[in-house]
């Protein structure tokens, strides 16, 4: 893997500094930015039911199934679009889709009190 392309100053680059034809000299990747922001449904995993067959991993069009120690380990929500394919293909019905707004609300309730305070401060900042 080549060294990561440094684009931190790209907004200041003159026209001759850009690679010819607007080529990005590294493989297509959205690793470095969030593309899951417009999801309206969120996959929720029931670990009890999951048999770690990885069918969801194969089918997810956004490579958003996380794997840890050869086990299904939830979803990469920064990139999951909420398409629901994983829920559809899972042979064990271990995934269900939840309304994203509800999920966010739930997340907010589940946050420890300190984090909630931080978030509020972030918003006002």
């Amino acid at each position, binding site marked *: 893997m*080549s060294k990561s392309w440094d684009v931190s100053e790209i907004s200041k680059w003159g026209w*001759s500094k850009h*690679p*010819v*034809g607007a*080529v990005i*000299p590294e*493989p297509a990747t959205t690793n470095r930015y969030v593309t899951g922001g417009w999801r309206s449904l969120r996959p929720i995993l029931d670990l009890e039911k999951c048999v770690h067959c990885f069918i969801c991993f194969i089918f997810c069009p956004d490579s958003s199934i996380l794997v840890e120690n050869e086990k299904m380990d939830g979803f990469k929500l920064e990139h999951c679009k909420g398409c629901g394919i994983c829920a559809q293909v899972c042979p064990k019905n271990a995934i269900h889709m939840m309304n994203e707004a509800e999920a966010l609300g739930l997340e907010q309730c589940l946050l420890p009190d300190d984090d909630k305070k931080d978030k509020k401060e972030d918003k006002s900042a």
Partner: protein
Amino acid sequence: MTKVAAMVGTDAIAEAMRQINPDVVPAYPITPQTSIVETYAQMVADKLVDTEMINVESEHSALSAAIGAAAAGSRVMTATSSQGLALMWEMLYIASGLRLPIVMTNVNRALSAPVNIHCDHSDSMGARDAGWIQLYSEDAQEAYDNIIQAVRIAEHPDVLLPVMVLMDGFIISHSLGRVELLEDQPVKNFVGTIQPPYSLLDTKNPPSFGAFDGLHGYYFEVKRAQAQGMLNASAVIKKVGTEFAGISGRSYDFFETYRLEDAEYAIIALGSAAGTARTAVDELREQGERVGLLKLRMFRPFPAQELVDALSHIKAAAVLDRSDTLAGSIGGPVFVELRSAFYEAEKKPRLYNFIYGLGGRELDINMMKQTVETIQTGMSDGVVQSSVAYLGVRE
């Protein structure tokens, strides 16, 4: 040793392609281009080349496949005409924007409506701002020579732009002409192998092509860089044109002049009309008229300064356009650009525009002479008639 053959234009192009042996040729048939890809497909089937030929379902797909293959670092060629070129439209800009050195023959044919399969330049002239280099050919020989040079021009690291080689439909594409063919080896040496700056197949450093410019907005910078490629193309086209003489004895420039140095009046034409104009010039010269010809080969980039230098001593010139901008009374594309080139020049000829040959309407030597008579009368009367006239239209 060169071989002389009687060939139609489309075969001359296919023969040049055989000698170049591109990696990929995605193509879709359309009159009058069809015989290029038909002949080439036969060459592929006969294993005379090792090109991967991709039969696609439309010209949009033909150029899309060409773009993909070129991004993979292949040397890619294709061919089209008229509606086919029109269907390629959005891909034309992507090919040039991604700086992919695709070489395409466009056999000039009128654009519908009404449906017409004959020659005019409305197809390629409409694409004049698509960022492609455009080289026009007077005959099959020039088309053959242009294709070979186009590979070098397109792939030059200072340029990296797609090149369109233009050839008049039927008049050149389907007429037998004398063509001097080069040996295979000198052509192969001349074109060399492609050295793409990036390749999708480079597994060590895989790049990404055609990404969204983000909301940071660097589109403007990329277009400015593209404009530079077109600017750089002039010097490269000149150099390649001179080098080509080394293997063929025929050198090429932005344009060619004929009896122009001491001329008072000039005809400016591109494509097959230049041959008719040359004969008209000879006949008028015999009658004592000081007439010359400037045949434009390179329309993109437009050699504005060089044209001004070559024509400033002329009293009046007849600029021939085989297409109309349909923009009111401003005339055809060659005229509009030439007139613009002269705006700041101190010495300039009076320029008259003759739009001719639309939909393949015949242009003969007498009509060509008539353009010169018209500009001569215009000059001596001091009465400036309309600068834009339609030549050969039934009134």
